[in-house]
């Protein structure tokens, strides 16, 4: 158990450190803005507002939140205190809704969309990549350039293409939103059907890109393994092809798990932008609303939540990796 404890202890420590740095960045970066951020933001926010009390409320809220007259360290402590209570501030564009409120209604959509999409894309991509490496010949010649091209298409581009083809031209899928615009979220058969219909296009646009990228990576990993000495040795020994292939793909999978852990941030970023195209009610669209409405607390809240989500995903992948990596396993018996 010692090896595991050491491995997991290290991973947890890293998780905590990264989390703290992420918090600090989220806190400091917007405060590096030149000039008086409170006045600038109030001016941005108060455009078109004639009511003096509203402008003052905005200013006071900003001033309270930023505590501009207080030193940075004190501000950071207040920020952390609020965070512990789950208080991310009040949204400006959707006043008086709390940012944590808006985020909690959006986060489910994003997780339910991206988690299965990335996992399925990863699995299918690895399968195709492994097949391409094993079969070679025609399959590889066709599949490889197609995968590479698909992985080169930006997620939002794929989203627009699918939207135009399936929703506008073929009219087999709805154009935007997470459920029919004439519905109120509830537990009923109609609602579930509507959600599933709206789910298809965003889902497949993320999956198709993930497949491309993973297939390319898995293919070269598998080719690398297939050329390794132990494969040749195993062939000399007369071990069945099927068994060798099993070993090869297990070895090739390991770097792919690490690869997923390292690239999950980029994938999530791309998928969030793709959400905007479909006006999917997730975090991407929420963040976009925050940016267009100059709703600072909302932006800060969403970026923090996205970072935390990515950190947790990476952490989980690291833990899984610990269980499947023979090197970590071997450390148990030392």
């Amino acid at each position, binding site marked *: 158990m010692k090896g595991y404890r050491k491995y997991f202890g290290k991973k947890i420590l890293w998780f905590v450190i990264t989390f703290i740095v*992420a918090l600090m*960045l989220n806190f400091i970066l917007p405060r590096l803005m030149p000039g008086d951020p409170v006045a600038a933001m109030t001016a941005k926010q108060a455009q078109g507002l004639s009511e003096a009390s509203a402008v003052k409320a905005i200013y006071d809220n900003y001033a309270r939140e930023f505590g501009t007259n207080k030193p940075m360290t004190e501000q950071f402590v207040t920020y952390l205190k609020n965070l512990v209570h789950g208080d991310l501030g009040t949204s400006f564009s959707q006043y008086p809704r709390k940012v944590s409120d808006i985020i909690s209604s959006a986060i489910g959509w994003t997780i339910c969309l991206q988690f299965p999409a990335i996992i399925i894309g990863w699995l299918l991509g690895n399968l195709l990549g492994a097949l391409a490496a094993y079969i070679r010949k025609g399959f590889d010649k066709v599949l490889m350039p197609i995968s590479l091209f698909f992985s080169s298409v*930006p997620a939002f581009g794929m989203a627009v293409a699918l939207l135009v083809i399936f929703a506008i031209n073929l009219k087999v899928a709805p154009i935007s939103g997470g459920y029919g615009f004439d519905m109120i979220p509830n537990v009923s058969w109609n609602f579930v059907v509507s959600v599933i219909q709206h789910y298809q296009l965003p889902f497949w646009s993320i999956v198709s890109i993930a497949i491309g990228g993973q297939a*390319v990576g898995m293919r070269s990993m598998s*080719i690398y393994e297939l050329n*390794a000495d132990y494969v040749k040795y195993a062939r000399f020994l007369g071990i069945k092809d099927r068994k060798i292939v099993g070993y090869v793909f297990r070895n090739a999978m390991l770097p792919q798990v690490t690869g997923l852990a390292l690239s999950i941030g980029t994938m999530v970023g791309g998928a969030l932008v793709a959400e*905007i195209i479909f006006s999917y009610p997730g975090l991407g669209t929420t963040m976009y609303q925050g940016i267009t409405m100059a709703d600072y607390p909302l932006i800060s809240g969403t970026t923090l939540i996205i*970072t935390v989500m990515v950190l947790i995903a990476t952490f989980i992948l690291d833990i899984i990796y610990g269980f499947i990596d023979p090197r970590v396993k071997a450390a148990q018996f030392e």
Partner: protein
Amino acid sequence: MKNTIRQVFHSPKFVVGFCIFMSILLTMLIYPLINPGNPLQMIGLGTFAKPGTYVSMYDSVTTTEYSTFKLPDADAKRLDQILTSEDRVNMINWFSANNIDISKLNISDTQALLKLWKANYDPAIKPKGMTKAMRNYYIRLNTNINSAGNAETLSVTEVDPTTGETVEKSKISKTDYVNVDSVANVKTLPLGTDNFGRDTLKELVTACGVSIMIGLIAGAVATAIGLLLGLLAGYLGGVVDDIIMFFTNIFTVIPSFVLLILINYSIDQDQRGATTVALVIGLTSWVWTTRSVRSQVMSLRNRDHVNLSRLSGHSLPRIILTDILPYIASYVVMAFILQVSSGILAEAQLSLLGLGPKTTDVPTLGLMMNWAMLYSAHLNGSWWAYFPVILVIAFISFSLNLMNTGLDQVFNPTLRD
């Protein structure tokens, strides 16, 4: 060196990628020579003019050079043009509302459709359930159809500015044809105009150049930082390595996408030029290069030739320049290519979020996409405003990825086919 380059150009993947990228670059250089002018000039007053050739109506009516042709299918073509697909569907609806056999009718066959229409249509018939508005529509449609082929001549009149009277200037007959060359103003817009009425193709070519420049700057910055940190961490090891790897590990996990949003939001829109955005992208994406350079350098550090150089008392910069850099050059080039491609993508994503470079300066691929989406080009069928942009982004990164894969196979013999 020469041999390496020859080897690289023997890789089919690299060559294909290189050719695609070079043809994009060439188009970028040559097209502005053929079609000079400011790419941001708003030439159209409306939004999203369709792609095609636009002939000045004024010039074609006022020109004195015309020929007379009697083309047998002229009338039919005119009718073809007048009947929109919506009209055709409505005509079919009218037939079926009046129980007329349309089983043999083809909707694109204008002649047959009109023949059936003229034989059967009667404004007095009131089909069941048809609204008054719809009946009036059919009456209007019928008038259009009947008048389309009737007037033999149209007269061109001019308003006299002093008296305000209309004076007939000339008559245009149905058989008059103008040669396109004798019309003073003809404008070909291969990709139409965008939401601001700008020539999309011209804008796209410029945007492509700016985006590639953003990618190159971002890639250069990221590669420079990554190379420096990777060399230091890998070669010096010890505390330096620990510190550098501490930050590298942290920034590998914190998504650079989030950092980009936070930083770009903090920079005021007016100060956010293309170069600034490129620098910010570069500053947030050095992590990958650092990691791979470090691991390469670590395996080189204790090689015999490096030890020999160190024992000979060579300085640190010299060892790095002559004994280490040449060995990792191929990795650095590959990392640079990937950085360029991801830099272009990052700009596009930022712009879509509304955090890209400011709009008034230069067009970028992301900004074009952003405006097309803001004006719902994808919902109103203006494919020319967004589809070429997506295609260009895809082809740029496809060519760069292909080049990268090709290089990978040249330098990693185990990956060869």
